[in-house]
């Protein structure tokens, strides 16, 4: 909370973001400040637009109103070139890793370097092997993406995301489908990268236990708004019905068990009571 208060320490500042998709209001005047140099987690029930929020930050999607300031620049206003320049400073880890299937592990990690620099081959090799070493997969450099397990693929994708030493990494559901060992490896990596390189990290995830180990700050969003935020150890105790349901894992609550529907009795063909 203190971090967010000071503008200098805020890397991403979202103000009044409103987005309507297919007639449904995904974000309703959303405000959010993501502190620099910290690990921030964005949590929320499925379908609340957490991944959509990441896409807004990278400029893949544009909201209908509001500002998204990343490092002081408003993403929706950026030209193509400026947006691409900004993206070079952002690493993005996809849920399904999104490795390029045409290339082996080495070339996948080297891909951003080859596209944006004219570095000599020796330097590229050293950089790529350094990053692969950091994620523990230097030995897998010659494997093709189809030969990797889910956890390994995600670590390769992480190596690719950090190969340019970005200022910000966005993790989209980094823990989904990982066994406990792989999950801990990824957790450790996120923590290490944040501590050693000072990279700001934003995680979108559901796994509360994992988040508690790694995040400095948690936002809970629902119904297009931030409904709760704070320290991972205390956020569950703020007493709001949202946090109680989400962190308690209740089936019904502010997030209804029933998808909005008409009158049940009527749908089954029974006469309405009193008629």
């Amino acid at each position, binding site marked *: 909370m203190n971090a967010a208060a000071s503008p200098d320490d805020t890397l991403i500042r979202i103000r009044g973001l409103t987005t309507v998709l297919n007639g449904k209001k995904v974000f309703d005047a959303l405000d959010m400040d993501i502190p620099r140099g910290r690990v921030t987690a964005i949590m929320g029930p499925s379908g609340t637009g957490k991944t959509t929020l990441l896409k807004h930050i990278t400029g893949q999607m544009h909201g209908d109103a509001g500002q998204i300031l990343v490092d002081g620049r408003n993403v929706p206003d950026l030209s193509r070139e400026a947006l691409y320049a900004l993206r*070079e400073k952002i690493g993005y880890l996809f849920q399904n890793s*999104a490795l390029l299937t045409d290339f082996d592990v080495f070339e996948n990690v080297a891909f951003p370097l080859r596209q944006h620099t004219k570095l000599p081959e020796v330097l590229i090799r050293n950089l790529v092997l350094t990053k692969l070493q950091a994620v523990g997969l230097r030995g897998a450099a010659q494997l093709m993406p189809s030969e990797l397990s889910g956890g390994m693929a995600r670590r390769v994708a992480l190596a690719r995301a950090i190969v340019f030493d970005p200022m910000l990494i966005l993790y989209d559901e980094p823990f989904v489908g990982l066994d406990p060992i792989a999950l801990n490896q990824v957790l450790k990596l996120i923590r290490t990268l944040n501590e050693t390189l000072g990279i700001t990290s934003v995680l979108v995830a559901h796994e509360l236990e994992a988040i508690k180990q790694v995040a400095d700050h948690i936002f809970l969003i629902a119904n297009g708004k931030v409904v709760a935020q704070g320290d991972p150890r205390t956020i569950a105790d703020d007493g709001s019905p949202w946090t109680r349901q989400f962190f308690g894992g209740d089936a019904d609550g502010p997030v209804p068990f029933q998808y909005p529907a008409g009158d049940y009795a009527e749908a089954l063909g029974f006469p309405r009571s009193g008629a």
Partner: protein
Amino acid sequence: MNARIERDNVVTQALGQIGNCGVFLLQILAAIPRSLRYGRETVRQLWFVGAMSLTIIMTCGLFVGMVLELQLYHVLSMFGSTSMSGTVVAIATYRELGPVVTALLFAGRAGTAITAEIGLMRATDQISAMELMAVDPLAYVAAPRFLAGLVAMPLLCCVFCALAVFGGHLVGVSWLGIDNGTFWSNMTATVDVWQDIVSGVIWKSLAFGAVVALIAVYQGYTAPPTSEGVAYATTRTVVASSIAILALDFVLTAFLM
């Protein structure tokens, strides 16, 4: 009543697709200057799209030439002019069969591969990943494949035509016993470089290459990111390409010939 509405929808859908395809073409053309620095990628696509299609193109060219020669020999033998059969094989192949059959095979072999590949890249977020790595997928994925199709088609068509003439020679001269000299002299006397080879083989196949590559890339690029969507898109590539090739062939023939 319902049927009419549905048909209207099909028509408007088709028109919409054509319109989107045209917009997409402009986007690709705009991306071509940016894609020049991915020259290696274009070369790699030329390998997949062109060189890998050689086997089917060569085999089919050979058989088309052989069967044409066989048919023509039996018809022309009624008029005692079997030695013209090679000429007819050459002209028919250069003007129509070469570009059209090559384009249809190209759509089936390379077009579907392009659509499926791009569709899967989209389904597995590789396209998004490129955008986020500040690599323009139009310039890195779409334009090289489009260019490769544009370059590969005329080359493949030339190979197809050469093999067709060779197949015609094989059947006509080696098997049916047409005189070797008259076979070639008739052909060289009748086939015209501009009329038959340039406006037939080259222009037509360039146009077909552009159309097939555009449709294939467009279908892949706009495929719904599911396995079902990719499968549908692949089918649509073949159907749309085939219709476009034959319709365009008529227009081109009317203008070029």
